[in-house]
């Protein structure tokens, strides 16, 4: 199984190098590696608990632990495949799991704000709308304006929806009860990489002490810390910001079109994921359940 892990690791490195902003790819690779380790460990005779290294004593005494993965076990393969299937089922059910928690968080006659288009948030709000009546304000999230699509879908479910421009976020925030957003990635310190505009939204919410709730499934949790400023960014063609037809001026200026925003963990109130609600400060603990420390750097 050591070879298998090496193979998976090289492929994973290649894939993440191709598009660093798609962290989900790397996350899944790490999950699979963790699955393999677990299965191997189980067959090897170790109990699951000891692998966790929970107590300080274990941390001190078991330093330098490097498992030797070379002993082959015939049932390993079947076990791994089974575990991966379980993982797949879990992935398919994440949106529903999150949506099921909707009723606890949304109350009647509330004004909820969101930004851009997120399928998770859409499912969340739709589920709540079946029993409660509330209003939604959607910030349109220029320049791609995905907020429009979100508003259309929500209004199909008979939710009262309003679309507004990003500039009005602060102005309207005083009337809002809760802010619910989706995200692209959750970083190890509890920070977010979300669509550009989310940072503005988070700051406005903090200023008005409005709770910011992030709905994201666990596969978006990435064990990377935001040390290198450039790793997660994605800049696309400036066409959206200043179109090509503008002509001569384009040779003299620099136009950027960033896709993502960094939102620091202090601005977030709650993470809702398929395993329940969590505070941002607790995220790092969740990581150890999902990934093995050796895999943090793929």
């Amino acid at each position: 199984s050591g070879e298998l892990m090496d193979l998976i690791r090289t492929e994973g490195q290649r894939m993440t190098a191709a598009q660093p902003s798609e962290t989900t790819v790397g996350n899944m690779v790490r999950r699979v590696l963790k699955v393999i380790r677990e299965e191997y460990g189980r067959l090897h005779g170790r109990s699951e608990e000891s692998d966790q290294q929970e107590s300080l004593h274990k941390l001190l005494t078991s330093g330098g632990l490097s498992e030797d993965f070379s002993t082959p076990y015939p049932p390993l393969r079947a076990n791994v495949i089974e575990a991966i299937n379980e993982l797949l089922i879990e992935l398919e059910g994440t949106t529903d799991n999150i949506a099921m928690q909707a009723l606890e968080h949304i109350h009647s006659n509330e004004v909820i704000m969101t930004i851009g288009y997120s399928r998770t948030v859409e499912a969340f709000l739709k589920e709540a709308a079946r029993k409660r009546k509330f209003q939604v304000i959607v910030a349109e999230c220029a320049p791609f304006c995905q907020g429009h699509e979100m508003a259309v879908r929500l209004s199909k479910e008979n939710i009262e929806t309003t679309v507004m421009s990003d500039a009005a976020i602060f102005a309207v925030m005083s009337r809002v009860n809760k802010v619910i957003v989706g995200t692209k990635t959750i970083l190890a310190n509890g920070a977010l990489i979300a669509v550009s505009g989310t940072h503005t939204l988070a700051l406005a919410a903090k200023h008005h002490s409005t709770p910011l709730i992030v709905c994201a499934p666990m596969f978006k949790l990435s064990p990377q810390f935001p040390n290198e400023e450039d790793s997660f960014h994605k800049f696309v063609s400036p066409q959206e910001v200043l179109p090509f037809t503008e002509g001569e001026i384009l040779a003299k200026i620099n136009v950027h079109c960033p896709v993502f925003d960094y939102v620091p963990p202090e601005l977030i109130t709650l993470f809702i994921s398929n395993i329940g609600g969590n505070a941002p400060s607790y995220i790092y603990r969740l990581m150890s359940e999902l990934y093995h420390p050796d895999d943090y750097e793929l």
Partner: protein
Amino acid sequence: ALLPMANVAMIDYTLEFLTATGVEETFVFCCWKSAEIKEHLQKSKWCRHTSPNTVRFVTSDLYRSLGDVLRDVDAKSLVRSDFILVTGDVVSNFNITKALEEHKLRRKMEKNVSVMTMIFKESSPGHHARCKEDDIVVAMDSATNRVLHYQRTQGLKRFRFPMSLFQNSIENVEVRHDLLDCHISICSPQVAELFTDNFDYQTRDDFVRGLLVNEEVLGNQIHMHVTTEEYGAHICNLLMYEAVCSDIIRRWVYPLTPEMNFSDDKNQSYTHSKHNIYRGVDISLGQGSVLEENVLVGQGTVIGSNCSITNSVIGQNCRIGDKVILEGAFLWDGVHIADNVEICHSVICDEAEVKEKVKLKPRCVLSSQVVVGPGITLAEGTVISLHPPDEEEEDDDQFSDDSGVNKEESKVKLKGYNKKDVGSEGRGYLWKADDKNEEDEEEQRQSLWGPAMHSEEESESDSDLSMGSEEPDSRSASPQLDDIKVFQNEVLGTLQRGEEENISCDNLVLEINSLKYAYNIGLKEMMQVLSKVILEFPLQQLDANLDSQNYFSALLPLLKNWTPLFKNYIKRASDHLNALFAIEEFFLEHDSLCTSIAKVLMTFYQLEILEEDVILNWFSLRDTSDKGKQLRKNQRLQKFIQWLEEAEEESSDGDQD
């Protein structure tokens, strides 16, 4: 096509664009340096068996132009269905499926009338990615996107459009100058056949113009597709190279950006940072050096301290000294730059070396392995290469082939390097185009950098070309009046010859008939012209100021001779009327000859060219102009008419009896 744009060969961009839009089979036609292109592509990802796009090579040294290539395609029947025609230096992120669907739909609906769809991108005229040599003005039908008129505009201050463009039944004609030609075309198999048929089509331009001019005859149409959001450009000269390179770095061609590393080369992975700085692997930046904005640094490069680099592309394994200022510089692999150098908007090719304290002004080109010595300043637009200037240069290309240099050096005595040009330690020669052909030289020099964007030079050589292309347009669409004039002259010529050489009337009729068909003249006009010409004939033969008597005596024999002519054309009543009107017009113009109008009419009557009914009819027409009325008051004419009427009565009486 192997020139590196942002450190990736241009042909890779083209192939990536094609593969991304779903092309599955590509034919690459090469003529120069084909072995190297082949090798490069075979090493690249497109020739692996996992590639969705299979690449096939066809090489031949005989290809001199696009026309030759397409003729070869037709000869070898390489493509059977619609194909996309692209030059090897197109950079684009265009998704061609939509345009392709439209093209196929058009062909299905109108049974193969539409031959080609050209792809254009909307961009305003001043944009730096619009190559000045390539600038066009297009007139199109906005409903069907059909191209009606296509013209190169380089150097022209005025444009001419043929009237037929606006006169036919199309309702909305748009004239657009804001289009950039992407040089991507979706062609049908007929295109290759058309190239074979017309042997002098060399470029796509010829083809387009030829098709548009011959449109009515062959029924082929060209359509176009305009895109606003996607990027497409074609590198034809160094200005375009600079523009497209900077566009790539500034991410206009997303997703083909440098850090994507689509060519899958281990050496090419970059990380993208703020202000569009792309850094390769293993580079080292000295203290105090600043990569300000829009810079791409290749792998393994070492940059010294206190440098300032903006808007540049640096290749792999370069060595840059201290205090260097690079602004708009394009350095290929392995370049060595010593300290205190200033490089401005120039291209420095592989392995070249620039020694200390050199200043390169804008638009210099240093070719491969050239050394430019310490302390000199190269003026604007200098090109230094290792090819000695007196050699017969076979290749038109501006980047010399170094393997060739070694062979040639052994043949020729080694010339000393001109110290003035390249500095004391320099190696290289100032490259000048051949002085033989002045015109070519201008074109070549322009083709290096393209006409400068800021200066106001006019390029005269090219304006000749465009003048030439205007003429056929104007002649084919000239208004009808001109034709008639020409026809008239022709008829006059025919009659003159007829008289001089005593050609029989049948032959004259034949000639006039054929002229009529050639100039597309209607019967009515022909009658008018004929009458006019004949009546004017004596005037031309003899003196213009003729009095009636002499005129008439000159005219009479002519009329007698040419009676069969008239009889041939004057058959129906309306013809008679037309002839009479023409006669009237003629006499109105020539007042002095008014008196002989009666005699002329008499002659016509006697020769049985005109019938009395018609003459009477004409005479009694109510709505004639004042002058016409005055004419009719002419004594003689009235007498003649009276006589006619009496004659008619007599003959009708005679019949009754």
